[in-house]
């Protein structure tokens, strides 16, 4: 959605990019809960780090998210000339 401000000059590519972004996000939404719940079950049953292994993984995931968020520009992208 935010993509629209960053898309390449062709207006027709908007739908393609938007659809692609939604697909990627949908995959993440599918994987996320299943992976987190399984990780919690794994770290509790195997007693990895006293069952706290899942939180370590999730906190490192937050760090990855922060490093990606730091790539965002200070202002909205406006592609040249328009």
């Amino acid at each position, binding site marked *: 959605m935010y993509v*629209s401000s960053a898309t390449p000059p*062709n207006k027709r590519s908007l739908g393609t*990019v938007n659809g692609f*972004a939604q697909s*990627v996000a949908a995959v993440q939404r599918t994987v996320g809960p299943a992976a987190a719940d399984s990780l919690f079950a794994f770290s509790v049953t195997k007693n990895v780090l006293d069952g706290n292994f899942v939180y370590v993984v999730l906190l490192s995931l937050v760090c990855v998210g922060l490093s990606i968020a730091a790539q965002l520009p200070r202002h909205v992208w406006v592609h040249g000339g328009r």
Partner: protein
Amino acid sequence: MPRSGCILLCVVGHCCFVPERGSFSLSFKSLAEHHDPQTLIRTPPPVRVNSDVTQEVSSETVDTSQKDTQTPPPLRSLLTRPVLVTIANYSTLSLLEMTAVALIPLIWSTPVEFGGLGLSPVSIGLGMSLYGCMGGIFQFAVFPRLVARFGLRWVFVTSVAICAVIFAMFPLENLVMRHAIGGRPNATLWLLIFLQLWSLSIHKMGFGKFVILQHSSAVRRRLSPLRNYAIRQALCLCMSVLPRPRTSGR
């Protein structure tokens, strides 16, 4: 292919990609107003450049309706750095949000000795409804002021960083629950739960950022179909996100 044919193809392609029929004339008008000289002349060359030899040959043999589907540039050429960063951010935010929303009912209902809180379904339902109320109030009252004061980037980074608080609350809550007298939830636990839900509400503001950016860019360019599309996208997002806590909070 003559240039006038390219232009016709381009116009037809534009109209075909309008998301809804009602805005057909609007899109045509906006196209003529805002994109007339540059786009119509500039659009065809990338198609030529990006399509390979086989596409070129096949495009000679197929009829016009099939050519329309070939005019958009390939996906690979669209994945510039801004687009990739945006998609990566959006998907990371989705992943974190879904992870938190899936973990909260699971961990709250897990027995204390297994690292959970052992809360009753009634308490979990109360907590989730509290989160719903707080999320709504935040989106409505706090989010616009924060954006106006600190900017969208700051809000987004905060909404990612606050996930660390959400996840760090789980072991803390479990620790409080282990030391609670009689194993019953005490005031400290409710305070931590409130903090966790408050963080989750702040985290939700990241999605508001995506919507507001789309909206502002649409308003700036005065493209009505695009704005319709943005509002529809926001609605889709809300519909896909909102039922989740209700069903998993059972």
